[in-house]
C-alpha cells in the first residue's frame, strides 16, 4: 500500500471537504483528511480540486492541512480473523478500539480489521505443480471452532503452483503460496482485500429450490425463506422487526450470519452483541458469535460509514459464500441506510427525487440486493454457496407506500408485513397473514413435499379459515353477533386458537423460540383436525359450548411448548384423546335427540 500526500485542504463545510493540488486523485479513492487522518472518499473531481466525503466529523480540521491518498477505493480486508468480529461500517474492529482508547470512539482512530500478529495454523491441500485458477482452495485454516476458512486463489489469478507452504503457523500477511502466472509469479497471502462496492465474481447463478428454515411457524409454513432469496421485513416502530430479525439470526439454518446494525440504537446493539457472544443453540457447543460477523454502526455513528456498512457486510458475506458456505445477511434497517443516502445527497445539493431521496435510490438498492443468490463458485471443482438477504424496513408512520418500501418490494420476493394492530395486542411475531407473501412457495414445493405431503392443503386450509373469520367479522360489525349460529361461532373460536396456539410464538420461551418444520406441520394438522371435528360435531347437534370445554383443548393450547423430542408421542395422545372426547359428545347428542 502506498500512502502519499496528494493535496491540501481548501474548504471544509460539514462532512464535505475540498482539496486542491489533487492531480493524482482518483474517483472513489480512499483518502485520509487532515492531521488526525479522518477517512474520506473522493466523490467529485474538477481540474486539480477534488471534493471529499469525510466518514467522520470534521470539527477541528483546519485549512491547509494535508490529504493523504491510499490509492484504492473503500475496501474490506478478507481473511481468517473476521469470524466473530464486531466491526463498524468501515470495518474497524470495535472491541480493539475499546481496548486501545476506551469507551468513546475518537475520530481518525486506525485499527486494522484483521489482526496482523495473530498466527493461524495453515494446512495445505494442494501441492506444488498443480494448475490452479481463481477460487481454487489452496489450504484451510480453522478460523473458529465452527468455521473452517478455506484459503482461495484470489480472483484474476490463473497459473501453476510454484511453491506452497507446508503445514504451519502463519500471519495473514505472510505469503503461503506462489503461483506462476502469465504475468510472472504472484504471491498469495491468507488475506485479500476487495472494494466493497463491487460484487465478487462467481461462475453461475443457481435455481432456487431449497428453503432456509427459520423455526418461526408463521414464516416456515405461510411465507417461507428460500436459500439465496431476498426478504423484506417491514413495519412501523414497535412492531417487532428487530426482535424477529434477531431471533431468526439465531435460528436460521445458514452456516454463517452477517448481522448489520445500520443506524439503529446503541443499547439494542449492545443486546445483540451480548446475545451473540453468549447464546448457544441447542444443537451446537459454540456461541453464535463463532460463526457470525457483526457490523455495528449505530444512529449516532458517522453517517457515511452507515451508508458503507451494508456494502462492507455483503462483501464479507460474498467472501464466505465463495468458500462454499450458506450465508444469511441481515440489515437492520435499510431505511436508515436510505436515509443516510438521502442526507448525503442533500448535502451534495443533488436534485432530490421522491420524498427527498436521490433519484438513484432504486438502482442503489438493486446493486445491493442483486448480490443475493445461490451460486456456483469460481474454481476448478464445483462448489455451491449462497447469500440470503433479510432486510428490515422501517417506513415512516408505518406507511408502506413510501419509496424505500416500494423500491425494495420491486426486488424482494418475500414480504413480511408487520402489523401495528397485532403488536398492540402483543401478538408476536406481528406478521400480518393477509398482507405478507412469499413468491418462493412454488419453487420450494418439492422440498416441502418431502417433509409433509399435505403441506399445501394444511397451509391453504389454515389461511382460508383466517379469511373466513375476517369476512364474518365484517358481517358481525354490521348486524351484530346474535345472528351467528354455532357453526360461525366455531370459526371464530378456531381462528382464535390458530392465532394464539400456532401463529403466535414467543421469542423468550426456551422451547417455543424455535419450532422444527416437522412439528410446525404436525401442529397445523392437529389444529385443523380439531376444526373438522367441530364441524361434524355441530352437524350432529353438539352445542359449541360443550366442545370448547373439552379437556383436549388445553392440550392443543400447550402444543407449542412441548419439546420436539416428546412432541410425537404427546401429539399422538392428543389426537387419540380428541377422537375419543368428540365421540362421547356426539354419542350424548344422539341420545338426547333420541330421548326427545
Amino acid at each position, binding site marked *: 500500500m502506498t500512502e502519499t500526500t496528494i493535496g491540501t485542504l481548501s*474548504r471544509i463545510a460539514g462532512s464535505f471537504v475540498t482539496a486542491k493540488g489533487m492531480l493524482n486523485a482518483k474517483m472513489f479513492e480512499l483518502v485520509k483528511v487532515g492531521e488526525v487522518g479522518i477517512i474520506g472518499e473522493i466523490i467529485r473531481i474538477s481540474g486539480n480540486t477534488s471534493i471529499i466525503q469525510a466518514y467522520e466529523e470534521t470539527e477541528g480540521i*483546519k485549512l491547509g492541512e494535508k490529504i493523504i491518498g491510499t490509492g484504492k477505493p473503500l475496501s474490506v480486508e478478507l481473511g481468517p480473523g473476521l469470524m466473530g468480529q464486531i466491526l463498524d461500517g468501515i470495518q474497524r474492529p470495535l472491541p480493539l478500539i475499546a481496548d486501545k482508547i476506551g469507551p468513546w470512539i475518537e475520530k481518525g482512530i486506525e485499527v486494522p480489521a484483521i489482526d496482523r500478529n495473530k498466527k493461524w495454523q495453515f494446512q495445505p491441500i494442494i501441492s506444488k505443480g498443480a494448475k490452479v485458477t481463481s477460487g481454487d482452495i489452496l489450504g484451510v485454516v480453522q478460523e473458529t471452532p465452527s468455521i473452517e476458512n478455506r484459503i482461495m486463489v484470489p480472483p484474476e489469478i490463473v497459473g501453476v503452483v510454484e511453491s506452497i507452504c507446508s503445514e504451519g503457523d502463519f500471519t495473514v500477511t505472510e505469503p503461503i503460496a506462489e503461483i506462476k502466472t502469465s504475468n510472472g509469479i504472484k504471491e498469495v497471502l491468507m488475506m485479500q482485500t476487495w472494494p466493497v462496492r463491487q460484487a465478487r465474481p462467481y461462475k453461475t447463478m443457481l435455481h432456487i429450490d431449497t428453503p432456509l428454515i427459520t423455526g418461526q411457524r408463521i414464516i416456515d409454513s405461510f411465507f417461507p425463506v428460500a436459500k439465496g432469496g431476498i426478504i423484506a421485513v417491514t413495519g412501523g416502530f414497535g412492531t417487532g422487526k428487530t426482535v424477529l430479525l434477531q431471533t431468526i439470526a439465531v435460528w436460521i439454518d445458514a452456516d454463517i450470519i452477517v448481522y448489520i446494525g445500520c443506524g439503529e440504537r446503541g443499547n439494542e446493539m449492545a443486546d445483540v452483541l451480548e446475545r451473540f457472544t453468549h447464546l448457544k443453540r441447542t444443537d451446537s457447543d459454540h456461541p453464535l458469535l463463532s460463526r457470525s460477523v457483526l457490523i455495528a454502526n449505530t444512529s449516532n455513528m458517522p453517517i457515511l460509514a452507515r451508508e458503507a456498512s451494508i456494502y462492507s457486510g455483503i462483501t464479507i458475506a460474498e467472501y464466505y459464500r465463495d468458500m462454499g458456505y450458506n450465508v444469511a445477511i441481515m440489515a437492520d434497517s435499510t431505511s436508515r441506510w436510505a436515509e443516510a443516502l438521502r442526507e448525503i445527497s442533500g448535502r451534495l445539493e443533488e436534485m432530490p427525487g421522491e420524498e427527498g431521496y436521490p433519484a438513484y435510490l432504486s438502482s442503489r438498492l438493486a446493486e445491493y440486493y442483486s448480490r443475493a443468490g445461490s451460486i456456483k463458485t469460481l474454481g476448478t471443482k464445483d462448489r455451491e454457496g449462497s447469500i440470503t438477504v433479510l432486510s428490515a424496513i422501517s417506513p*415512516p408512520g408505518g406507511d408502506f407506500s413510501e419509496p424505500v418500501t416500494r423500491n425494495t418490494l420491486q426486488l424482494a420476493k418475500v414480504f413480511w408485513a408487520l402489523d401495528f394492530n397485532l403488536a398492540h395486542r402483543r401478538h408476536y411475531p406481528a406478521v400480518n397473514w393477509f398482507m405478507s407473501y412469499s413468491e418462493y412457495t412454488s419453487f420450494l414445493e418439492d422440498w416441502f413435499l418431502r417433509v409433509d405431503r399435505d403441506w399445501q392443503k394444511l397451509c391453504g386450509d389454515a389461511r382460508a379459515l383466517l379469511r373466513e373469520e375476517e369476512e364474518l367479522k365484517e358481517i*358481525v360489525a354490521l348486524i351484530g353477533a346474535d345472528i351467528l349460529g354455532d357453526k360461525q361461532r366455531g370459526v371464530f373460536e378456531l381462528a382464535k386458537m390458530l392465532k394464539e396456539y400456532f401463529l403466535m410464538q414467543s421469542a423468550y420461551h426456551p422451547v417455543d423460540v424455535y419450532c422444527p418444520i416437522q412439528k410446525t406441520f404436525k401442529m397445523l394438522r392437529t389444529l385443523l383436525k380439531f376444526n373438522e371435528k367441530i364441524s361434524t360435531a355441530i352437524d350432529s347437534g353438539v352445542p359449541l359450548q360443550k366442545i370448547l370445554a373439552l379437556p383436549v383443548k388445553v392440550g392443543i393450547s400447550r402444543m407449542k411448548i412441548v419439546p420436539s423430542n416428546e412432541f410425537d408421542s404427546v401429539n399422538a395422545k392428543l389426537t387419540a384423546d380428541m377422537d375419543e372426547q368428540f365421540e362421547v359428545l356426539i354419542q350424548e347428542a344422539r341420545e338426547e335427540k333420541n330421548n326427545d
Partner: protein
Amino acid sequence: MTKSNKGLTFFTVNEIEGSLLECESVVGIGYGELVKIITKDGKEKTGQVIDVSDKMTVIQLFENTSGLNIKSIGIRFTGDTIKLPVSMDMFGRIFSGVGKPIDNGPDIIPEDYLDVHAATINPYSRLHPTKVIQTGISVIDGLNTLLLGQKLPLLSGAGMPHKRLASQIVSQARVPETDEQFTIVFAAMGITSDEMVLFRNDFLKMDAINRVVMFINLAEDPAIERLLTPRFALTAAEYLAFQHDHHVLVIMVDVTNYCEALREISASRLEIPGRRGYPGYMYTDLAMLYERAGIIRGKKGSITMIPILTMPDDDVTHPIADLTNYITEGQIILDRSMFKRGIYPPIDPLICLSRLMDKGIGLNKTREDHKQLSDQLYYAYAEGKTVQETAMVSGEKALTNTDKLYLKFMERFEKEFINQGYYENRDIETTLNIGWDLLSILPESELARIDPEILNKFHPNYLK
C-alpha cells in the same frame, strides 16, 4: 504549515445575513472553531465557523446580529471548539442554553472544560440496561417499564399534562437497588419564563433542587442557542455520570422546539429541506442527542433520558415524533381522549412501548408474573376497545356475554389501573396486584397468555 490565530483580531467581515457572518479567511482556521465577535462598544458575542474555504469563512452567530456594523466588528479566532466548563458546584444552579449562569450567582470554578459534541460511545463498550426504575406510575411500571440507561420519550400534545407527569417522575423515581434519588439534568428548550418558574418551584417543593442542574433556553432566546442547549446539558450529564458515578436522569423539554430551531437554522443556511421542511439530517442530529444515554461497562454511573415532545396536532406520524420513536427505546404517548375524560396520567398503553422492558422484569427482578400479566392486560384492553367499537356501530345487541365482560374490564382498567393521583406513588407490587384484581373480571378461560402455574399463584381466585 498550520498555525493558530489565537489572540489576533481581524477586521475582515464582508457580509452579514441573518445570523451568519461572512469574512475573509485567514490561515489555520478550523472547521467548527469557536469565534469571538467584538463589537464597536467592546462587547463580545460568540459564533462558530460553519464553512471555511481559502477565500471566505462563514460564521454562525449564537446571538442576534442587530446593530452590528461591517466596518467596526472584529473577529477573534479562539482555536478551540465549543466547551462546557464543569464542576460539582453546578448543582442547584441555572445555566443558559450555552452554559452561562443566569441565576445571578457567580461563575463556577471549572474543574474541567468538556467538548459539547461528545465522541460516540462504542457500542461494544455499552452495557445493556437490565435494572428497573420504579416510577410509581402503574401504566409505566406495569406495562411500559423504564430501565436504568434507557431513553424513553413522553409524546404529548398541546395542553396535556406532560410537564406534571415529568415532575411526578422526577419526584418518585428511585435508583434501582438503592433508595437514592436520581441526579437530575434538566434541559429546557424554548420554554416560556413562567414555565421555567413552575419547574423551578416544583423542584424546590419536592426538595430536589440540590440534585438538579438546569439548562434553560427560553422561547425568546436565539434559535441557534436552542440547538446547543441539549448538548451542554448532556455534557454536564456525562460529566456527572461517567466521571462522578452519578445516576443521572435527563429531562429534555421540549424537543419539538428544538426541531423547529433546527429547521429555522437549516433554512437560513439555504439547505435542501426534507420531510415537511425539516432538514434531511434531523434523524442523525436527534440520534446524536438521544444516543448519549446509556450505561458504559466499567463505569458506575448511568444516563437515563426522558425527552418530552409535543406532537403538532397530536400526530404521531409527524417527523419529529416519528424519528424520535425510531431512535428511542419505546415511547409513552399521552392520549387526548383520555385527557378529556379526566384520566391522569392520560396514557393509552396500546400505543406505548418500552423496548427494553422484557430485559428488566420477571423473577428476581420485579415479579415472575410481570411479563405474562402485562401481556394479558394488553390483550384484554385491546379486546375491550374492539368490543367498544363494535358496540358503537351495532349497539349492545351485537355483544356476547364475554364481550360485555371485556367492556367492563376496559372501563375499570382505565379508572383503577391507569388513573392515579399526582401524589400517588405505587410500588410495582401494588401495580401488579391491581392488574390481577381487574383480570379477575374475566373468565379464567380467557386468560390464555398466562401459564396455569402463574395463574394458580397470583389469581385472586386462588389467593387465601
